[in-house]
C-alpha cells in the first residue's frame, strides 16, 4: 500500500548510510515547545473538590462523552490508568497539555496538541464506574453499591447494545468542542492496552441549565425543556436529590452521585410536520415563551389542575405533567443533556439527531427508573422519540488534590 505513507519515514535516506541520519545530532529533547508556565488565559473550573466538577457546574456548551471497556485483567494496571487519567485531567482542566511539554524527535508528542492556545474553556472531566466494573475481574464485587444495577428494560426501549453500558465513563464538557473532544481522544490514548472505547457521543449544544444565571436552552424540538431543573445555587436540592450521603451501602461513594445516560433519538422529520397545537399539547408548554400552557412566563408555577371547557389545560399525557416532581412523589433529577446529531440513518435517509440525556441523582431506582417507567407508558412524546442507548454509572466523589485519583478508596 504505497499511498501517503510518509508519516514515518523508514529508511529515510539512501542505502546503507541511512541509519544515523534520522536521529543523529538531533539529540533528545531539543525541541521544546514551551516551558510549563502559568495556565493560558481562559476560564478554568477547579478540578479538585468534595464533588466532581461537571455535575453542579454551570452546563458548558459542548460535550464529549465516552464509555470504555476495561481490557486488562490486572487491578494494578486499572488503578494506574485511573491515576494517569487523574493527572491528565488536572493538567487539561487548567488548559495545559497532558504530561510534559517535551517533544523528542523520535517519539510521538505526549499530548496530541490540537488545543494548544485554546485555553481551558471551562473544561470539566467527570469519571464514573459502570456496574460491569464490579464483576469478578478486579475483586470489586463486594464494593458494588446495590443501586448500581443495570437499568431494567423499560417499555418502548429500542436500545442498541453497541451504544449502551461500559465499565468506565468519561464526561468532558467545555465551551469549545475541540477542547472537549481532545479529552476523549487523549484519555483513549492513555488507556491503550488497558481499556478500549466502547461507544462515544458528541453533544453540540447544552439542553439544560444547571445555574440560575443561565437561560433555559431549547432542545432540537424547539422547546425549552428542563426549566425546573436542579440548580447549583440550590444546595438543599443537591443534597436531597443528587449527592450520595450517609445512606449509601458503600462508603467510597459518599459525596458522589449516579449518572444515567440515555441516547434519545428524536424523529424530527415527523415532529416537524406536527401542528403547533399538537406540539404544545405533547410538551405541555408554549413554544414561544416556554411558559406552561395557560401561564404567561417560563418560570410561572405549573398548575396541573387548571381546566378549560372541562378539559385539563395541560393534557393528561403531556410530557411536562408526567415528568413534574409533583406527580412523581417529589422526585427530581439534575439534568445535563446535550443535543446531538450523528449524520443520517443510512437505511432511511432520515436525520439521526436528538437528545443525549444525562441525569445525576443519588438513587437511580427511585429517581430515573421510576420516572422513566411512567413516562415510557403514557408520555405523548413517545410518538416522536426512541431511546437508542442506555448506561448507568456510579460517579465517585471529587478528588482531594494531586496524588488522589478516582477510586483510590476502591483499590487502595
Amino acid at each position: 500500500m504505497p499511498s501517503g505513507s510518509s508519516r514515518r519515514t523508514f529508511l529515510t535516506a539512501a542505502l546503507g548510510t541511512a541509519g544515523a541520519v534520522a536521529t543523529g545530532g538531533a539529540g533528545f529533547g531539543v525541541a521544546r515547545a514551551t516551558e510549563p508556565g502559568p495556565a493560558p488565559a481562559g476560564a478554568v473550573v477547579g478540578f479538585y473538590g468534595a464533588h466532581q466538577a461537571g455535575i453542579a457546574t454551570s452546563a458548558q456548551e459542548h460535550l464529549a462523552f465516552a464509555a470504555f471497556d476495561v481490557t486488562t485483567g490486572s487491578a494494578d494496571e486499572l488503578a494506574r490508568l485511573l491515576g494517569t487519567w487523574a493527572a491528565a485531567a488536572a493538567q487539561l482542566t487548567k488548559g495545559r497539555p497532558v504530561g510534559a511539554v517535551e517533544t523528542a524527535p523520535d517519539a510521538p508528542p505526549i499530548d496530541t496538541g490540537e488545543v494548544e492556545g485554546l485555553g481551558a474553556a471551562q473544561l470539566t472531566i467527570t469519571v464514573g464506574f459502570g456496574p460491569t466494573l464490579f464483576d469478578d475481574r478486579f475483586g470489586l464485587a463486594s464494593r458494588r453499591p446495590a443501586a448500581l444495577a443495570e437499568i431494567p428494560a423499560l417499555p418502548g426501549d429500542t436500545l442498541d447494545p453497541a451504544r449502551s453500558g461500559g465499565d468506565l465513563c468519561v464526561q468532558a464538557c467545555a465551551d469549545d468542542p475541540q477542547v472537549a473532544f481532545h479529552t476523549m481522544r487523549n484519555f483513549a490514548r492513555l488507556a491503550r492496552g488497558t481499556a478500549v472505547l466502547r461507544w462515544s457521543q458528541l453533544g453540540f449544544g447544552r439542553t439544560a441549565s444547571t445555574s440560575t444565571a443561565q437561560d433555559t436552552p431549547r432542545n432540537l424540538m424547539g422547546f425549552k425543556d428542563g426549566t425546573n431543573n436542579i440548580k447549583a445555587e440550590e444546595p438543599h436540592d443537591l443534597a436531597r436529590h443528587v449527592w450520595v450521603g450517609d445512606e449509601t451501602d458503600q462508603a467510597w461513594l459518599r459525596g458522589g452521585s449516579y449518572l444515567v445516560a440515555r441516547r434519545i433519538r428524536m424523529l424530527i422529520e415527523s415532529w416537524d410536520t406536527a401542528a403547533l397545537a399538537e406540539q404544545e399539547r405533547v410538551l405541555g408548554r408554549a413554544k414561544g415563551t416556554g411558559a406552561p400552557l395557560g401561564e404567561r412566563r417560563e418560570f410561572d408555577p405549573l398548575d396541573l389542575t387548571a381546566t378549560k371547557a372541562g378539559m385539563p389545560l395541560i393534557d393528561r399525557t403531556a410530557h411536562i405533567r408526567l415528568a413534574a416532581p409533583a406527580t412523581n412523589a417529589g422526585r427530581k433529577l439534575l439534568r445535563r443533556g446535550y443535543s446531538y446529531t450523528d449524520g443520517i440513518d443510512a437505511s432511511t435517509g432520515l436525520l439521526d439527531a436528538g437528545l443525549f440525556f444525562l441525569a445525576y441523582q443519588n438513587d437511580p431506582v427511585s429517581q430515573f427508573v421510576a420516572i422513566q417507567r411512567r413516562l415510557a407508558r403514557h408520555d405523548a412524546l413517545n410518538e416522536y422519540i426512541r431511546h437508542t442507548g442506555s448506561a448507568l454509572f456510579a460517579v465517585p466523589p471529587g478528588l482531594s488534590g494531586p496524588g488522589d485519583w478516582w477510586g483510590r478508596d476502591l483499590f487502595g
Partner: protein
Amino acid sequence: MVPTLVIGLREGLEAALIVGIIAAFLREQGRRDLLRAVLAGVGAAVLLCLGLGLALQAYSRSLPQKQQEGLETVVGALAVVMVTYMVIWMRRHSRELKGSLEGQAAGALAAGAGSRAGAALVLMAFLAVIREGFETVVFLLAAFQKPGSGSAAGLGAVAGLAVAVGLGYGVYRGGVRLNLSKFFRATGLVLVVVASGLVVNCLHTAHEAGWLDAGQAGTFDLTWLVRPGSVQSSLLTGMLGLQPRPVLVELVGWLVYLVPVGLFVAWPPAARTSPRVQLRAALAAGVAIALAAGLLTLGITRRTEPDAAAAPVTGTTIAGRVVTVTVTAAHGCVPDTTSLRAGGVTVKIRNVDATAVTEVEVMDGERILGEKENLPPGFSGRFAMRLDAGTYTLYCPGATPERRALSVTGTTTVVADAGVAALLAQAGTGYADYVRTQTAALVTAAERLAATLRGTDLAAAQRAYIAARPYYERIEPVAESFVVGTDSIDVDLDARDGDVPPASWRGFHRIEKALFARQTLAGTRAYGTRLVADAQRLAALTATLTYAPTELANGAQELLDEVAASKITGEEERYSRIDMLDVADNVQGAQQAFSRLRPALQRIDPALATTITTGFDALDREIARLRTDANPSGYLLYGQLDAGVKRALAAAVKAVQEPLSRVASKVADA
C-alpha cells in the same frame, strides 16, 4: 582461578574417592566385569550434571536483567548452604569414609547375586557422582558469576577436576594413601573463605534483583591499597571474596559467615572438645560479630544521614547504591542523594503531586540507561541499571527543574555489561539477514506465480498468488523506502487499482484482479514476468542494506499502521479478500523487527519491553482466531468477518502500537 581449582579438586575428589574405592573393592572381589558398568554410570552422571549446568546457564541468560540477578542470588545461596553442610559433614566423617563405603559395597554385593548386585553398585557410583556433580555445578556456576571470572576460572575448575580424577585413580591402584582428615580440613578452610565470598556476591545480586535495600551505605575504601584491576585486587576479591569498597551489608555478611564457620573447621583435632562446645563457641562468635556489625551500622547511618541531605559532596560522602527520588510539583525531581557507588544502582521513585510528570529516566548524555513510566501522582515505582563511574542525568520530563546531575564513583564490581550498543548493533545485522531471506523467498514465489500465469490452471495461479503475498507483506516498509524520483518499488509491486494511471499499473494487485475478479489467466503473463523482475530488483537493492535501531522500531510500527489503516478496513486485497493473511504477515514482520530490538530494550526499559511482548502475544491470539482450514489462505476471508472480530483485532493492534511508538526514542542514541 584458585577458588574454582579448589572446588574442582575437592568436589571431584569426593566423587573420585567413592568411585575409586568401589572400583578397588570390585577388583579385590574379582568382579572386574562390573567395572565397565560402574564407569558407564559415572559417565552418565557426569553428562547429566554438565547438562544441568548448561541448562541453568542458558535459562539464566534468557531472563531479564533483574530476574537474572535473582536467579544468581538463589544459586549462590544454595551453593553457600551446600558447601557449609559438606565441609561440616566431611569434617566429622572423613575418617570412617573408606570403611563404611566398603561395608556398603559388600552389603550390596551380598544382597543379591549377578545382575542385581551389579545394578546396586552401579547405582551407588552413579548417585555419588550425581550428588557431588550437582554440588560442583551449582558451586562453579556461582563462582563463575563472581567478578573477574572467565577462562582462568574455567581452567582452574578443569585442573582441579583432573587432579581429583588422578587421585581417585591412584586410590584405585592402591598406590595413593591420603590423610583424608588433614586434606579435608585444609581444603575445607579454603572453601569456607570462597563461600564467604559467595555470601558477599549473593548479597550484591540480591540488591540488584531488588530484594535487598538495607545496608547499602559505604564502609571503608581499600582502593588506595589495592588498585582496581590490579593483581592484588583480583587476589582480594577472588581469594578472600571481599571487594575493595564493600557496602555495609556485604561486610557484615562476610564476617558473620567467615569467622564462626572458619573457626569450626580450623579447630585442631588435638584440642577438640565436644562438638556441642565447639558449636556453642562458633555461635557465640557469630552473635558477637553480628552485634558489632549492628552497632557499626547505626554509627554509619547516623553519620551519613546529614551528608545525604546536604548539597552533593563527592569524595568525602560515602556513597550507596540506592537513590530515592521524590517528585513534587513544587520542587520537581528530588533525589535523596546525588552521589552513588558504581555497580547496580536502584532508583526508587514516588510521585507525590506532580501531575505533569509520569516518568523518570537516568541518562548518560542523551542516551537513556533506565527508566520507569506510568508514575502518576499517588504511585511509586523503581528501576535498576548498572552504572560505571561518571556523571549522569536524572531526568523527569515535565518537572521543574527537569534535570539533576548524579555522580557515580568507584569501580563496577561486576563483569562488564555485554553493552546496549553491542546488542543494538546485533539487532541491525540480524534484521538485515531476515530481510534477505524474505526477499529471496519472494523472488522464488514470484517465479512460481509467473510460471502458473503462463499455464492454464486458474486455481493453481490463485494458490501461487496467495503463497507469494506473505514474503512481501512481512518486509513492506523496506520496499516502501525505495523511492527514487517518481519511481517507487512499492508502487511497482503493490499498487492498487486507481493508485496509479491504468497504463502503468502492474504488480501483485493487477494479477489479483485478473485471477480473482475476472477469473482468467488471459493477459497476465507479462505482469508475471514484470513481477519477477521487480522482486529481483528489490532483492538486489536490499542485499547490502544495514539498519539502524530506530529504523527497526519505525518499521515495526509502520507494519502495524498497515494493518490498522488498510487491512482491517479490507482495502488491500479487494478481489481475493485475503486481507487477514496480510494482517498475519504484517504482524509477523513487526514482531521480527521488534524481537531483534528486545534484548537491548530489556536493558533500557524492561517494563516497556514486557508490555510490548505481552501486547504482541494478545495480538497473536486474536489472529489465531481468524485461522481456518476452509480457505486456501488459511484465514477467514474479509467478507466472513463480523464487526466484533474486526473491532477486537483493531484494539489489539492499537494496544501494541501505542507502547511501540515509544521505542524509537529509547534506542535512538544508545
